[in-house]
């Protein structure tokens, strides 16, 4: 069977789940099993599409101008399989997660349609199809963001919908420009015709695609919707949005700027590189200051998109200099990180989901000590954290390692800017890595370790089996994608070959070796070395120390007696040094309110509150919206309610037309 049949079956599964959700059934959460099956067969479709490299589905006409055309190539196949992998795990998770939701029906419906729309985006073959799928995806995700319909989520949804609509406007613009200059709406014929495009037209398209798709992907400074929208949605949805939906932005960008536009000038790549670096650093910096777990993860999505763009950007830069092998390496890095981020970010959001499920709060200051009550969630969340911090031997490290290689190879680029910027990108990546590590030490340490910081945290229970299973799948994948880079590369290299005309001669016989830098890496070897030495260490310790008994007592804490949970280090305290070091970026505000019984000796209460300034909202978006509203309000006087004025309009219009019209 070819990919088509699997595709159809998979979509059929999803749609049947969606339609079943509308019927009055009991226990609708089990419909997610259908979604699992759908994800499974679509995953197969994706893999086989990667190898087959071509798939064309019969078009469905809509109107004389438009028709729905779906097709697929290896790139689409890659994204197809990424979506499917995450969808599978999330669906498993959801069975338990939505059990005691009130309105399951609509959630199941929206969930399935949402997934189908993401598949549709990836498989779209012409402008119309792409736009319809794209906007459908946006609409459905908007519904999901506003799923529990309180003011907060409504606001978040509004910001999200409006910003992505602005993005869509740019996408429409770029499509129209493409269409006008290539005279075709089909991507395939655009690709063929794009070679003849004049330079400035290409530039317009490129800029539009950065803004348009960047908004969806959440690059700085178009990211503001992301930390609002993702926390508002239910956690399984956040996992999908953060794991794969924003990746469709990356897909669209690659599809347009690398695939259809073909080779561009060097500054394109450099721009993307810089945007990537900035997004990575700023994203993680803001993440550090968040104590709302889901917001924190949302900011990390911005960071990881930045890392992906580091790869993609340097790939574009190399390609425009004709260094195809290096370009291939960089693109591989980017795509590899795309997959990895989907996996570990999904895992982390699911973990957060089960945390929130157990503790009824997203604020990590109210958690703590959960690793004892929720051992599995704790373990999987830890694995996710280690992976996102790019620590070996997990998957995050492999892709960041490849990114490093690509950035170091930037030295081979002819232009001095590229030479300079790509190592700096490397430094930015290092900084990002360190910050991410700090952030997840905070996230995991504060919420899972130490003593419970609230009653909810104290009587938290481990989540249900299916939720654990969902997380387990992703956790295992985190490890596998780390220690089996060969398999992953087989998924990626066909599309890389299509886009850059080279496979970057990255060899992966157990060892991932980039012959361009004579460097090699084997996470598997690292893992096994550590396991081996670990065992050795245990044995040695036993031998050296003999059997010794362990006494359990309160923490010593330099002899401080009766430690209470209020005395623990808080997340705020943990990040304070960083807040002070980067105060130029955070612009922190703090106030200390002290009320005395007898000034200045006896303090009754002492209230400390500090916040950081959300730079982009405060100095970019709020003024903009305010301006728009002010100007609009001025227009009110046109419709003053005075009939004579209206009659005046008629006269004036008529007069003007009579004078200038004829």
């Amino acid at each position, binding site marked *: 069977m070819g990919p088509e049949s699997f595709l159809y079956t998979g979509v059929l599964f999803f749609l049947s789940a969606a339609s079943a959700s509308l019927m009055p059934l009991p226990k609708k959460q089990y419909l997610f099993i259908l979604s699992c099956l759908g994800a499974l067969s679509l995953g197969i479709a994706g893999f086989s599409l990667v190898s087959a490299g071509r798939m064309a589905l019969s078009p*469905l*006409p*809509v*109107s*004389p*101008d*438009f028709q*729905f055309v779906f097709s697929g190539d290896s790139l689409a196949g890659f994204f197809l399989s990424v979506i499917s992998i995450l969808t599978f795990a999330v669906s498993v998770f959801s069975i338990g997660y939505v059990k005691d*939701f*009130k*309105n399951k*029906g*609509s959630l199941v419906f929206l969930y399935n349609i949402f997934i189908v729309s993401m598949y549709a985006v990836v498989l779209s073959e012409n402008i*119309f199809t792409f*736009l*319809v799928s794209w*906007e*459908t995806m946006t*609409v459905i995700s908007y*519904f999901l963001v*506003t799923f*529990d*319909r*309180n*003011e907060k*989520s*409504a606001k978040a*949804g*509004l910001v999200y*919908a*409006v910003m992505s*609509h*602005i993005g869509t*406007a740019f996408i*429409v*613009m770029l499509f*129209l420009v493409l*269409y*006008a200059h290539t005279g075709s709406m089909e991507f395939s014929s655009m690709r063929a015709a794009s070679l003849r495009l004049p330079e400035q037209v290409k530039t317009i398209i490129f800029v539009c695609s950065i803004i348009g798709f960047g908004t969806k992907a959440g690059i700085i400074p178009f990211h503001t919707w992301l930390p609002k929208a993702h926390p508002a949605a239910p956690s399984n949805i956040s996992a999908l949005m953060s794991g794969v939906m924003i990746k469709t932005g990356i897909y669209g960008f690659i599809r347009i700027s690398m695939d259809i536009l073909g080779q561009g000038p060097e500054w394109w790549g450099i721009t993307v590189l810089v945007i990537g670096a900035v997004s990575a650093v700023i994203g993680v910096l803001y993440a550090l200051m968040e104590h709302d777990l889901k917001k924190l993860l949302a900011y990390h999505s911005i960071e990881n998109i930045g890392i992906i763009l580091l790869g993609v950007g340097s790939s574009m830069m190399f390609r425009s200099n004709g260094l195809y092998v290096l370009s291939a390496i960089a693109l591989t890095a980017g795509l590899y990180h795309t997959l990895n981020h989907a996996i570990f970010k999904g895992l982390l959001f699911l973990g957060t989901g089960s945390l929130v499920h157990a503790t009824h709060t997203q604020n990590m200051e109210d958690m703590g000590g959960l690793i004892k009550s929720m051992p599995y969630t704790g373990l999987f969340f830890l694995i996710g954290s280690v992976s996102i911090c790019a620590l070996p031997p997990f998957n995050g490290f492999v892709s960041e390692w490849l990114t490093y290689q690509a950035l170091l190879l930037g030295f081979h680029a002819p232009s001095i800017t590229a030479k300079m910027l790509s190592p700096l990108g490397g430094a930015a990546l290092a900084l990002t890595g360190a910050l991410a590590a700090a952030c997840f030490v905070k996230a995991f340490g504060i919420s899972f370790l130490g003593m419970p910081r609230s009653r909810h945290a104290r009587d938290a229970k481990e989540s249900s089996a299916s939720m654990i299973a969902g997380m387990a799948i992703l956790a295992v994948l985190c490890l596998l994608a780390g220690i089996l880079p060969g398999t992953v590369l087989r998924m990626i290299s066909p599309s890389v070959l299509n886009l850059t005309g080279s496979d970057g001669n990255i060899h992966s016989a157990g060892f991932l070796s980039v012959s361009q830098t004579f460097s090699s890496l084997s996470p598997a070897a690292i893992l096994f070395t550590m396991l081996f030495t670990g065992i050795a260490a245990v044995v040695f310790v036993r031998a050296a120390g003999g059997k010794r008994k362990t006494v359990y007592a309160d923490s010593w804490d330099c002899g401080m007696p009766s430690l209470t949970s209020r005395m623990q280090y808080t997340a705020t305290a943990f990040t304070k040094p960083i807040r002070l070091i980067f105060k130029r970026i955070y612009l922190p505000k703090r106030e200390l309110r002290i009320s005395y019984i007898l000034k200045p000796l006896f303090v009754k209460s002492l209230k400390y509150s500090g916040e950081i300034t959300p730079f982009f909202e405060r100095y970019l978006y709020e003024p903009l919206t305010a301006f*728009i*509203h002010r*100007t*609009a*309000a001025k*227009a*009110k006087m*046109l*419709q003053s309610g005075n*009939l004579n*004025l*209206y*009659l005046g*309009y*008629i006269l004036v*219009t*008529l007069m003007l*037309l*009579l004078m200038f*019209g*004829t």
Partner: protein
Amino acid sequence: MVWMLIIPVVTALICSLLKSARITGYVSLAGTAALAVAALPVIISAFAGPVETLRGVLYADALSGYIMALVIFLSFASAVYSIGYLEHERKVGLISAKGIRRYYALLHLFIFTMLLVTLANNLALMWIAIEATTIVSALLIGLGFSKRSLAIEAAWKYIILCTVGITFALLGIFITYYATISVMGGEGVLNWTTLRSIAPKLNPATMKLAFIFILVGYGTKAGLAPVHNWLPDAHSEAPSPISALLSGILLNTAFYGIMRFVSITDPSTGSAFTGNLLILFGLISMGVSSVFILIQVNYKRLLAYSSIEHMGIISLGMGIGGFAGVYGALLHIMNHAVSKPLMFFVSGRIQANYGSTKIENVNGVLSKMPLLGTLTFIGALSLAGMPPFNIFISEFTVLKAIVDKGLWAIAVLFLLCVVLIFYGMLSGFGRMLFGGNGHANGAEHEKGEDRDAASAPVSVSSALNNGIMILLASLIIIFGVTVPGFIDTAIRACIDVLGVE
């Protein structure tokens, strides 16, 4: 064809004579149904080719058939909706039994006049019909309901502005008539059929003058900015079923007049002249509406402004011309005629439940009345031009036509307005739909239907209400993914009639 004109009048008579208010509603429903039955063969044959009766006084071709079909469909829809609506209005004492009878009588007269517009072969006759629609609908807005001073204000503005405007249209018709005299030698003609044949021979200068008067005149009625000012008031103060008719189709009947004239004027003046004027009006309409939608605090007015926007898009499409442009415009007429009534219906229900048309006084619709909320969502998003809903297709067709002509400035403005309007619509309706009680609302979501019914006046009529609204909503979605074959052929036929190459 004559029956199509007789049936509404008869129904109107019966309605005005009947005693019981309950029955009247169903009588009018039956009337519209009968009308539909009578009209179907006419419409079908009209698409096949022009048909005329009464020695060519009544005439129907594809274009009139198209508008006619919409008129009848919407009349039916609002006849259905009116039943439940009026029952509620009567319960709260906004209207008396006498008022209800008068309402239905006027409703059917209104339908009659609109049908007459589409059937008139003689342009002056068409003018008379259009003026008649103004008078009747003004009565429906103002006098249909007691104790509504705002309605009276709105009606007054409506009738004054439209009459003034349409007076100029008549002047335009006179000028056209004059222009024909020189061609026909002595005797002038106003028959559409004849005019089409002699159009190329008409004197361009005269026709330009005529068209300007026509555009300003009918443009006022069609709600094109900057002569749109009556529209927000009238649409927001009219009873919802009437707003639906006004917005959904009355504007289009006026625009139908413009289209007819365009196809007469173009051959003599060349299409650039009319095209530029229509584009100008279209852009102004979109700009004005987008600004006002952004600051709107009253959801019915918001809908009214969105009608202005969509009329703007239609006239933009006409102005761009060419197959794509006109196709887009005609398709947009239909899509708008499906989406807007839905929105006015739901807003009528919301108004009935919350007793206010202020956005700030409404919240949590989605939680309190899930069905209604969902329908509102679909309607609002489709009006905002969001796929996968119908209006996106026609808007995108128009946009594509613009780009085909290479008018990038217009394309950019178009996109800008669309984004602003999306923002306005979503923030407005978002505020109404969400809020209220947070996650707890989930419980009600399960048994949303009966809650919804409970909030509506009487079960039968409310079932009818929901039925018609769901019908419209499903049409929105269906037309959002495909343009059915018969509609496609219909539109193509209209394009032939308009003589677009």
